[in-house]
């Protein structure tokens, strides 16, 4: 079970959280000004990276807050969690084992 570091509560087990999709996809300020294709990209266009992924989680069975996280999709390691509205932190791509 993953340990997820809620920026408001600290480390808590995965069971308390719910995944909420890719992060940093802002709702356009004026949707009616967008063409169908651009709106379609906003609705459905999502990254599927192998490696670091910025994504949203909600501490559903805890403080109830949404927050963002950087997770390595190859090994589920969380590199960072941060509050909504904060910049995506710079983290090094994972470099394997810390120690033997």
């Amino acid at each position, binding site marked *: 079970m993953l340990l997820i570091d809620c920026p408001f509560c600290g480390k808590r087990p995965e069971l308390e959280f719910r995944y909420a999709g890719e992060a940093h996809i802002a709702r356009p300020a004026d*949707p009616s000004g967008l063409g169908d294709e651009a*709106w379609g990209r906003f*609705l459905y266009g999502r990254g599927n990276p192998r490696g670091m992924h910025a994504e949203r989680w909600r501490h559903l069975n805890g403080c109830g807050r949404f927050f963002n996280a950087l997770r390595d999709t190859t090994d589920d390691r969380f590199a960072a969690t941060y509050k*909504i509205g904060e910049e995506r932190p710079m983290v090094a791509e994972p470099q394997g084992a810390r120690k033997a």
Partner: protein
Amino acid sequence: MSAPFRLGAGGRIDRSRKLRFWLDRKAYEGVAGDTLASALLANGVHLVGRSFKYHRPRGIMAAGSDEPNALVSVGSGSRFTPNLRATQVELTDGLVAQSQNRWPSLGRDFGALNDVFSPLFPAGFYYKTFMWPKSAWKRIYEPKIRAMAGLGRAPTLPDSDTYTQRYAHCDALIVGAGPAGIAAALAAEAHGARVILCDEQAELGGSLLAETKATIDGKEASAWLSDALSRLSHSPNVRWLSRTTAFGCFPHNMVGLAERLTDHLPSPSEGRPRERLWQVRAKEVVLATGALERPLVFPDNDRPGIMLADAARQYLARYAVKPGTRVVVVTAHDQAYRAATELAEAGVEIAAILDIRQDASGSWAEQARGAGLHILSSTTICATSGRHRVSSVEIAPVGRDGKVGPRSRLACDLVLMCGGFTPAIHLFSQARGKLRFEERLNAFLPDGGAEGVRCAGASRGIFGLDAAIADGVAAGEAAARDAVGGGVEAAHSPVPLPKDLDGRRLDPLPHDRSPHRVKAFVDFQNDVTAKDVKLAVREGFRSIEHIKRYTTTGMATDQGKTSNMNALGIAASALDKPLPDVGLTTFRMPYTPVTFGTFAGVARGELFDPVRVTPTHDWASAHGAVFEDVGQWKRARYFPLKDEDMHRAVARECQAVRQSVGVFDASTLGKIEIVGPDAAEFMNRIYVNPWSRLEPGRCRYGVMLREDGSILDDGVVGRLAADRFHVTTTTGGAAQVLNHMEDFLQTEWSGLDCWLTSTTEQWAVIAVQGPDSRKILERLVDDIDLSAAAMPHMSVREGHVCGVPARVFRVSFTGELGFEINVPADHGRAVWQAVLDAGFSRSLTPYGTEAMHVMRAEKGYIIVGQDTDGTVTADDVGLSWAIGKTKKDFVGKRSLARPALSDPGRKQLVGLVTEDPELVLEEGAQIIAEEPTASHRSAPHKMIGHVTSSYFSATLGRGIALAMVAGGRRRMGETLYVPMPEGSIKAVVTNPVFLDPEGKRLDA
């Protein structure tokens, strides 16, 4: 009765406490400290089971959790457990065990015919043979095969034991309490770490429990062990758990432990849980899981009386049991010499030690030589004999060219084999650690890559008592340093692998017989032989994962603890590839089987899935309600009187509401209170409706969309004040609506000043519906003017009902005049009773969800999720009137402008009436436009829609249905067809509002 093979002295047993036990109705005697296996061996019993596929007689092969053969069922009735390893079953007084997979008895087993006909059962036999006819597989082949092949019977009664679960956190979790694990625990504790130490055995100590001569720090091993345990038990920072298997290693250093609490007690006290699941989150994990002895692969190596050499030594040293009287040892590893020497010292005759190697020069071999044991190097076993117990072996020299020389026969009642040791890397691999093949050991070793997980001792190839302890100390120090930090230094480093590694053999032993005729077992539990593995390669399987699945090697309940490396070695040579290139199959949890009860814990019966009930639940139960599940809620579906069926009860309940008055518990409706200066603005953005001009005291039917334009949920919203809305949602949608709202409020519109609070469980909702509903409410309310002029349809008032603070809504989901009384949930039952009392003379009728459904369908009111799915827009179900046309934006608005969402050919909500009024269409039935004729009944028709709701309406005296039909609103009056197995049904498209389309009854 007394056990003839028990030594008079020695061992970690208590001879004064005699225990009586039964195997297959025969009584035996053991002593305290025995396992079932050691007690059976003390009684000279080797035959304990029949094998999985060929029903061959099998005996005890190992001494621990790696045992593949000796599976027994223990207990009876609701405490019956099959497939337990006799080597791990602690003996208790009165224990009743049964052998498995035999009929009629262990000695005479009908299924053993499988062994005679075994040439007919090669690897993949089932796939190759039972192919046609296809239908026979499920009905005939599989049930028969399952009955013949297999393990113990599943218990037939519900488990009467209870199970418990715990979470724990620690700095260092140490798995395995052998010398390395104990040394690691001592070192970690000394450096200030909070330690959990666990071991699967009853006694901590691992291999130390079978050390009779070694000394550590100048003390006898057993004294060192008890001193160490005493030190650990006095430390407030150490928790040690015996009888506790670390069965799985999960991400972020979570380790699952299964602790067995009562199986070793003769009669568990009531209420004491049988097992406990530990979910341990450790900063650092030290795996001191030891190594598993490998069998040798030679013809008929599976007879009872053929054991692993070091297992036999453990029975001798720990349980004071002589596993035989005359022994032939066959080995490819020095450790077997130690076993032979110690058995010889205990008075067991060693007929010969056969060493497949040309010379053995280790210290154990020297000792054996010194003791005058008969050693034959470069010698193999070609055959064994003995029906229920090995009685002799045929041995032969192997020349330098690999040729097998002339055979000779040696009588014996015990054969000990040793093919080397395989480090137990299961948990390390589960933790996603990397493995490296060490050629000198012929084994895979841990090679980093698992953060916060390290191995110590034999599990990383460090054998020998002193080296293992030194390695454990280093691992414990390093774990403490990494977990505690703060200046802790690791003074010792991990022990390097020695140069003269003694690893050895993975190939089958050479023999002089036809390889096609002999059975040299690799996987004893699944009856896989060397020739099966070779056959799989000949038939084209290349990947070890495929070879594993085709032959089933390593797929038994022991997960190939004794077999995986041998199978890999055979596959590698058959594929003519270096072994590391063949790869290793994946290690998965659990390390040993874990009971379902442990995982379920208290989540059984009523606690398996929580049930939500409304304040009137007990009243409804007492009044004969039939309940239905809606999400986790129990809702009263109908209230049958005497011998009424559902049809008649629902008709009566509907009639009461339509003609006088009914009462309904609507407490399950989701409720959210939205409060704050920006509450109205938030509502404007979330709902399609406009809210700014809705006056306090008025209600509106709200619809919300997903961003893609499809309907998410609906419900009546009351505005209580300029800054306060009482939102209702569907019963099933409450949680996701709140999540949806929170998502937008927290992430997109965090500048809006308002708060969302779930109040679903705070309010009991009592709906009073029907022409007489006002008269009932008037008796209960004195501070709200309920008159039609003062309180019109779709309004809300705050006041008191029966003196209880209440919010009274004038709303209707039935099409009748109606009110919904919201009172604090604690008062719900009392107010419900007051409503019933007030309505008695008006024949007030409680009604359930079924009548509610019928009445709302008569009015064409949709149920989100029943009449809609994730593709349906507000316009599709005729709700475009709800959309605030002047609003610049709301969630989903932009999607509605996409061309596909305004296509006139989209499916639209319509009513359907069947030509035959008695017919009720089936919900989910497909709809077609053209009448199917007899000549092309099976021809494909274009499906143009489907039935979403369908009921018999007693009020209208006919079946009615709601349906989503392509271009439906343009089809009014058209006849459509609903094809059913009995023939197609004619139905006419109508307005979905079947009753009172002008809505006059609402104002009754």
